[in-house]
């Protein structure tokens, strides 16, 4: 991690949540600045935060609108959205608008930290992807394009490999159906093709494909490769 602590802008109208995040993130070496509404959040953008935690339910501006404004100011700023359960459409929209990830309220601090780490990964690892990605029994050599499960080579079709590469490249981060479809196919195609490839890939790399531990389904949203510990 950098010598200077990373600065996190917390935008939430609930004081207990802001306090919790200030204390919780403080223990992990983050410095927090917080805003109870959209107006204060935009003003605090001059402090150049390294990451934003944004509650979608704000009193003054719609959360998605604020997200758009923040994204317009800083294209590369990692944003993690806090949203409520059952509102998958809003989560997908936030991700489409450029949020890096989301956490559903109520959330555990560990879950939030994992999402933040994934969103910050490219900042934290200035040298880019490690040449060999390891997750449990799975190893992926992105340079030599070799995938192994328990040291046994796994044969993947080009599309399956491409899907896995995208997941590895964004390990720990949720990838929407829309994003994956756009990256994997040049022409618009039905989402069920993606499901078929995910199923096939799981058959090849998951220790128990009926209960996936590596490629996680974010129901109604997309997929997430579990981040290595």
């Amino acid at each position, binding site marked *: 991690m950098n010598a200077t602590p990373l600065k996190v802008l917390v935008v939430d109208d609930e004081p207990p949540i802001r306090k919790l995040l200030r204390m919780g993130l403080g223990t992990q070496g983050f410095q927090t600045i917080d805003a109870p509404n959209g107006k204060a959040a935009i003003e605090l953008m001059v402090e150049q935060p390294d990451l934003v935690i944004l509650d979608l339910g704000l009193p003054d501006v719609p959360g998605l609108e604020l997200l758009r404004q923040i994204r317009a100011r800083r294209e590369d700023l990692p944003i993690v959205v806090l949203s409520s*359960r*059952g509102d*998958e*459409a809003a989560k997908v929209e936030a991700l489409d608008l450029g949020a890096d990830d989301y956490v559903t309220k*109520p959330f*555990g601090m560990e879950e939030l930290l994992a999402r933040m780490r994934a969103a910050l990964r490219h900042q934290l690892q200035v040298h880019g992807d490690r040449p060999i990605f390891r997750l449990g029994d799975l190893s992926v050599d992105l340079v030599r394009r070799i995938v192994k499960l328990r040291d046994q080579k796994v044969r993947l*079709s080009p599309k399956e490999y491409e899907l896995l590469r995208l997941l590895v490249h964004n390990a720990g981060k949720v990838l929407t159906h829309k994003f994956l479809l756009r990256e994997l196919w040049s022409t618009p195609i*039905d*989402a*069920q*093709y993606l*499901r*078929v490839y*995910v*199923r*096939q890939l799981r058959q090849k790399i998951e220790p128990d*494909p*009926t*209960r*996936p531990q590596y490629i*996680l*389904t974010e*129901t*109604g949203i997309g997929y997430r490769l579990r981040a290595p510990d």
Partner: protein
Amino acid sequence: MAASLCYNFFFLPPLYTFTITDPTNFAAFFFFTVIAIVVSNLAARVRTLAVAAMARARTTDALYAFSRKLAGVGTLDDVLWATAYQAALMLKVRVVLLLPGDGSIVVKAGYPPEDVLDQADLAAATWAWEHNRPAGRGSDTLPGAKRLFLPMRTGRGAIGIVGIDSDKAGPLLTPDQRRLLDALIDQAALAIERVYLVDDLDQAKRRAEADRLRSALLTSISHDLKTPLAAILGAAGTLRGFARKLDDEGKVDLLSTIIEESERLNRFIANLLDMTRLEAGSIKLNTSPQDIGEIVGTALERASKMLARHNIEVEIVADLPMLELDPVLFEQALFNLLDNAAKYAPPETTVRVQAQQEENTVELRVLDEGAGIPPDEIDLIFDKFHRARKLDEVRAGTGLGLAISRGFIEAMGGSITAANRSDRSGAVFTITLSIPKPAERLDTAA
């Protein structure tokens, strides 16, 4: 009279003339004639009376049959139709029946069928309704109307209006017919009132049922909200007040309690929200072709904590077709079944999830190795706030999970059933989902 003349012609001298010469004979002829006239008049009277009696008997029979028919029909429409038909048949007139509705009085039935009245008739009908007196053709009020309108009355006042007309010139009804119509109307009014009373009774029953549910809801909510809250408050208070007297293990224990009880509270609130959405009919389906196996995987992952002490076995037939589902709702429905299995099957037993294709459906089963469902509760198990008997103290269920499962599955066009296992003790829940037509399906090409 003919007999008297014959008697005169043939028997009284002079014979073969109508002349009477003898005064005695004259007297006899006179009495004979008078008696004949009286007797014949009496006979005619008797016959008229007999005919009238028979007509009355037929009318009474018809009325009796009508009243029996009315007693047998249950709906308002049936009562109205039977009344219109019977009146039209017995009086040889056209009949319309009007009941209050939409702030005024509207045609509800007719024989022959009639939907609308012209302005004059409507005015007469409305007047008859508002004043509870006859109006229209042949009456004192608005006699220009085509029909005669009579109120149908019960002990509680006017209940509707009957309107009649016919193509016959002159008076619409004879006094007899009018009496008959009154009898028909009285019976119809009673039958209509009976239907209303039954409706009122049904509504009262439904209100009572709603009240019962509401009080069950309150009991359930206060219990299910307060229990975890009490544990959380207690644990947090202990930690703040006595932190120095607690060893590390004790602290971790209390912290775990806080987390676990919060999660339980969260699940309960989520259930309440789901149930509210179902009841309000505000479930928005977001369906797309889904892989059942994938959803089973995510539901099991979510339920992994509560099923940590159970064995899980998944048997999903390879190459199941994709199904049109809302993945979020389906996962929740399945999660609730797994949650139920975790509550009612003891630890170290196996919870099995099976999926296989039948002819036009996919069947997904969740089997547990618990005590099973008491046979008389199988039909109730999906009802709101139903909890299996005698187990309340052990499992703090909300009684909502299975009701939500059923609501979600049915919203997606599927069905869900509960039964006991035939191979051993335990419950089996079966979700049946139809397979989209082949044209809509995707070839699973690599």
